[in-house]
């Protein structure tokens, strides 16, 4: 049953119970328990097309609780805690930032616990059944470009994690909402006015954040793995000419390895997985100043395979 089949009061009742809400997101299942109305309402909007199920029918990967602290911060400048399996990996956040805290906490759960996969910090999209991997540092325009591509005929697999199964080198989709930051929020609103962006959260550690809901089609196909074909390192540069320059594979491999969450932990498996991926992909540097020019060049690349 999709999350959107439940009303907010129904979901809040579930989330407040001992069993919580179970969300099936990519290869993971998450149980969330909370009494925070705003968080439940936001998650219903952002994860509306994801499935939920009964705790009795599902082995849960991450048991997340988000409750107010049991001290005066429950009422005075109220805060909220994120905990997993009884651990509190973060300091409490302002209760008004519960949604970004959930998203960051979910990232933390994956990066820390999903060690059966190789985890790259990259967005992933797909066209013509070939996957495009966009690894990048913050500020490179990766999320903005990925969001624009996902509304331009590309299948959206992920914004934050490129999850690779070491056994076959396939990419496992996890099409969670994309956290757009600062100017990117208006850029995507202008680019695709029909998209849904949740409430804006100001003064977070990354500035203002608005979460972009993923296309329904991406979630419907979230169990269909991707085949790596292109590794493209994007870089937004205002007033620059849009260029796509081939990149040396060994250099690309070094960049990818340094961009992974758990490459060292994966050790030889990580090396072999990245090596295979680079061997199977064409590697490029993409410099762009407008989304339309970047999409056009990537469309041409994908259509000429």
């Amino acid at each position: 049953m999709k999350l959107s089949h439940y009303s907010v009061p129904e979901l809040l009742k579930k989330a407040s119970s001992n069993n919580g809400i179970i969300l099936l997101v990519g290869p993971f299942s998450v149980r969330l328990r909370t009494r925070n109305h705003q968080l439940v309402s936001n998650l219903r909007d952002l994860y509306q097309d994801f499935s939920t199920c009964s705790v009795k029918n599902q082995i849960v990967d991450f048991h997340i609780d988000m409750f107010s602290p049991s001290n005066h911060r429950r009422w005075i400048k109220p805060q909220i805690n994120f905990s997993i399996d009884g651990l509190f990996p973060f300091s409490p956040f302002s209760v008004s930032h519960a949604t970004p805290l959930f998203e960051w906490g979910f990232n933390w759960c994956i990066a820390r616990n999903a060690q059966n996969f190789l985890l790259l910090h990259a967005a992933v999209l797909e066209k013509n059944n070939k996957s495009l991997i966009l690894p990048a540092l913050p500020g490179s325009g990766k999320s903005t470009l990925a969001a624009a591509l996902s509304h331009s005929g590309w299948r959206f697999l992920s914004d934050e994690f490129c999850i690779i199964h070491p056994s076959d080198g396939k990419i496992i989709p996890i099409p969670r909402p994309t956290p757009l930051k600062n100017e990117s929020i208006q850029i995507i609103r202008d680019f695709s006015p029909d998209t849904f962006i949740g409430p804006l959260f100001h003064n977070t550690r990354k500035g203002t954040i608005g979460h972009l809901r993923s296309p329904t089609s991406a979630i419907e196909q979230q169990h269909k793995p991707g085949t790596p074909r292109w590794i493209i390192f994007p870089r937004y540069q205002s007033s620059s000419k849009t260029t796509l320059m081939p990149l040396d594979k060994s250099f690309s491999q070094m960049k990818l390895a340094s961009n992974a969450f758990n490459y060292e932990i994966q050790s030889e498996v990580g090396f072999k997985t990245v090596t295979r991926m680079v061997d199977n992909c064409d590697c490029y540097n993409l410099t762009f100043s407008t989304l339309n020019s970047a999409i056009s060049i990537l469309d041409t690349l994908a259509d000429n395979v």
Partner: protein
Amino acid sequence: MHEVKKQIQSRKWSVPQNTTLLIKQRQDSAIVFHSKSGETHQLNDIGIAALLIIQQHPVSLNDLADQINKLYEVETPSELTVRLQRLVKDFEILGLIEPFKE
């Protein structure tokens, strides 16, 4: 001084025991994964040639220079030896090689 230099050049080098080096060679460079440190290094053609020679069997700097010279027909062998001396030192710092224990 001359004696010390000679000693350094005749000291043999080898890949440490219980160390796995995974190597992916491509056109002009190679990537080496060092199992003990978990680090990955990018080497140019001479670097990877030197490492592969040392991996095959323990070798002195002089022998290494001779073998590389044969492969690349270097015009100035003395410069090559200096370069390899630096390279061997770097390899040792990275833990890729160590002085050979007879």
